[in-house]
């Protein structure tokens, strides 16, 4: 089994075999980050362009390190510095970047579907680094890799995702991947951030402690502070009163449960410091695995692009 798509726009629709292949491939890249000289020549001469229409430090840096460890040239463009602020359309941005012949495009955009739109117009592979409230596939892959490493498997695990489910692209990618891999998903959050239609994705709980009962994995979501102005909750204080992962709340999970968070964390709002820094937390393992996942995806997609380009030349 291999991974045959030309882009990584989302995890929805990927088969279990494809996901396993992606995880195995990422696993093989982990070791490079532990070497003294953390660089291989695999993508030498390739250009990876990161197009970030939304602020991000962690994801962009992770992609940059991943690209550089593979010896690719990495160019990062952020919305603030780009012509977007001068009124250029996404279509024109796409055409211009395509004309510069990148080998891979990494896109973060506040609008759902924007990477899909770009993928229709650029000739190179597109990696979705987060599109609105839609998907964030490399985040979910690094979550799954972390879970697999820590718990030895994914199938059969009970996984609780907690927080702002409605606006979370991390949730969507994880729900698709976890369910495909055979895990059971629970969704926990206030009804304002967890509409009834989402019950199709997992068991819904409005109460944190009962939702966490016996789970093997707790996946906390970052709460965007601007949600409180829109009446999704009366205040951050009241949110944390009911949905903050404290040591006490975590006690209802399985004794060997692990805690994930995509970061950056709001200490004391969705997660207490004791939990974030405690023995159950695998948050920094996630960050470590993120580089391996992104190296693997860059390798698989840019490598394919080269093969296709060479075929075209020969043909």
């Amino acid at each position, binding site marked *: 089994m291999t991974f045959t798509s030309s882009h990584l726009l989302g995890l929805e629709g990927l088969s279990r075999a494809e996901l396993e292949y992606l995880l195995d491939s990422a696993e093989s890249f982990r070791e490079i980050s532990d070497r003294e000289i953390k660089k291989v020549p695999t993508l030498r001469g390739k250009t990876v362009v990161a197009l970030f229409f939304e602020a991000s430090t962690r994801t962009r840096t992770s992609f940059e390190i991943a690209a550089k460890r593979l010896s690719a040239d990495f160019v990062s463009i952020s919305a603030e510095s780009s012509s977007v602020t001068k009124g250029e359309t996404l*279509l024109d941005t796409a055409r211009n970047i395509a004309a510069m012949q990148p080998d891979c495009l990494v896109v973060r955009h506040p*609008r*759902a*579907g924007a990477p899909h739109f770009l993928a229709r117009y650029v000739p190179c592979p597109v990696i979705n680094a987060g599109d*609105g409230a839609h998907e964030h596939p490399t985040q979910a892959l690094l979550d799954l890799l972390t879970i697999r490493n820590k718990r030895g498997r994914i199938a059969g695990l009970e996984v609780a995702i907690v927080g702002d489910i409605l606006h979370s692209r991390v949730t969507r990618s994880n729900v698709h991947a976890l369910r495909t891999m055979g895990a059971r998903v629970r969704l926990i959050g206030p009804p304002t951030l967890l509409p009834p239609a989402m019950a*199709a994705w997992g068991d819904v709980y409005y109460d944190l402690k009962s939702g966490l009962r016996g789970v093997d994995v707790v996946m906390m979501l970052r709460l965007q502070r601007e949600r409180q102005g829109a009446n999704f909750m009366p205040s951050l204080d009241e949110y944390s009163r009911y949905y903050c992962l404290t040591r006490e709340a975590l006690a209802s999970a399985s004794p060997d449960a692990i805690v994930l968070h995509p970061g950056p964390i709001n200490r004391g709002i969705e997660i207490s410091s004791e939990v974030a820094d405690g023995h159950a937390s695998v948050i920094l393992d996630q960050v470590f695995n993120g580089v391996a996942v992104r190296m693997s995806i860059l390798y698989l997609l840019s490598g394919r692009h080269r093969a296709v380009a060479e075929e075209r030349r020969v043909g």
Partner: protein
Amino acid sequence: MSQAGALLITGGTVIDPVNDRTGPFDVLVRDGRIVAVEAPGRIEAAADRVDAAGCWVTPGLIDMHVHLREPGYEYKETVATGTLSAVAGGFTAVACMANTKPVNDSAAVTEFILDRARIAGLARVHPIGALSVNLAGRELAEIGEMFEAGIVAISDDGMPVADGSLMRRALEYAQIFDIPVIVHEEDPQLAGDGVMHEGGTCHHLGLRGMPAAAEEAMLARDLALLQQTGGRLHVAHISTAGSIRLLREAKLRGLMVTAEVTPHHFALTDDAVRDYDTNAKMKPPLRQQSDVDVVIEALRDGIIDAIATDHAPHHRDEKDVEFDAAAFGIVGLETSLPLALKLVREADLDPVTLVRAMSVNPARILGLEAGSLAVGMPADITVIDPNHAWTVDLEGLRSKSKNSPFGGWPMVGAARMTIVGGRILWPREGEK
């Protein structure tokens, strides 16, 4: 082009619900009016013959909800291109909404639109005046002045009337002129910055939803007002099962309420938004199958009075963008009839009901001298070939804009001929 001479339409099946006439008849037209409708072969007259064998001969189709974009947005559509699109789709008349630039909230703009229509010389154009000045939802527009210039209804379509007391006054005041108040039912707060129907698909795609309740809550308000004020309320593009329930109940109580549905709301569901197709983005949004089923049933029952397209041309630059950034609305004049005929074939819609929904009822609601093939009526006639198979080619649309989700769809049925005031305006010479 045949000037208003004599035309004899022979061999077709007449469907004329107002005069309770369905079957083989010949129709004679002279000087722009219908002068005889008789059993086949009975009419002896010197006239150009139109062979309608295998076709339906119906009162001219009327699309009571279009946006012609002129004045102000001529890059999207003009009165000339919009009315060409209309006749190509079988429509002899259209009613156009007021959201032009400047807004049609004065006699001057109404007269301008009617002038452009006269110059174009294609489908008849019936302007709809703004309900409020500049569609701002604050004070009533000068409805009487516009009525004298030729408007047939008032509406702030596209800009829901959030202020209940303004809606009340509009319903009261419009009774002087006996014209309907046409409402775009959408609670602006509930709809928020949603871009599609709120349901499973929007959560899947990570797009913001507009709940069905945004339409239903506003309709409930307006029906309660109508009960109090009297007058006539016409519900534009009704789209949810809950709205149909409210409409059905209001009609049972005898309220003077009518409603239209668009072809896209009975032909598509929110599933069409998958892949972020911006040509599936409109207001109200495409709903779920359970809504579509109820809408079709209500159309069959006559609870929904009319089929109207909400023809909303947009330039490709306004659609070829991210889904969130795309304009709301699609063109519809050239795909409406075949989509309605699809219901005749697949959902037991009676052809007589189709003619009521696409001609008789729009004429009745707007008070037009149309919708009937009675002797003496203006000769606005559509000859429909219900079996003509074709494929929608967006670039071939006569509308200036091509924003339709039906590109590439195989269709069965089309207007063979569109006759307005006794003149054959479709097909044009050299076309079809």
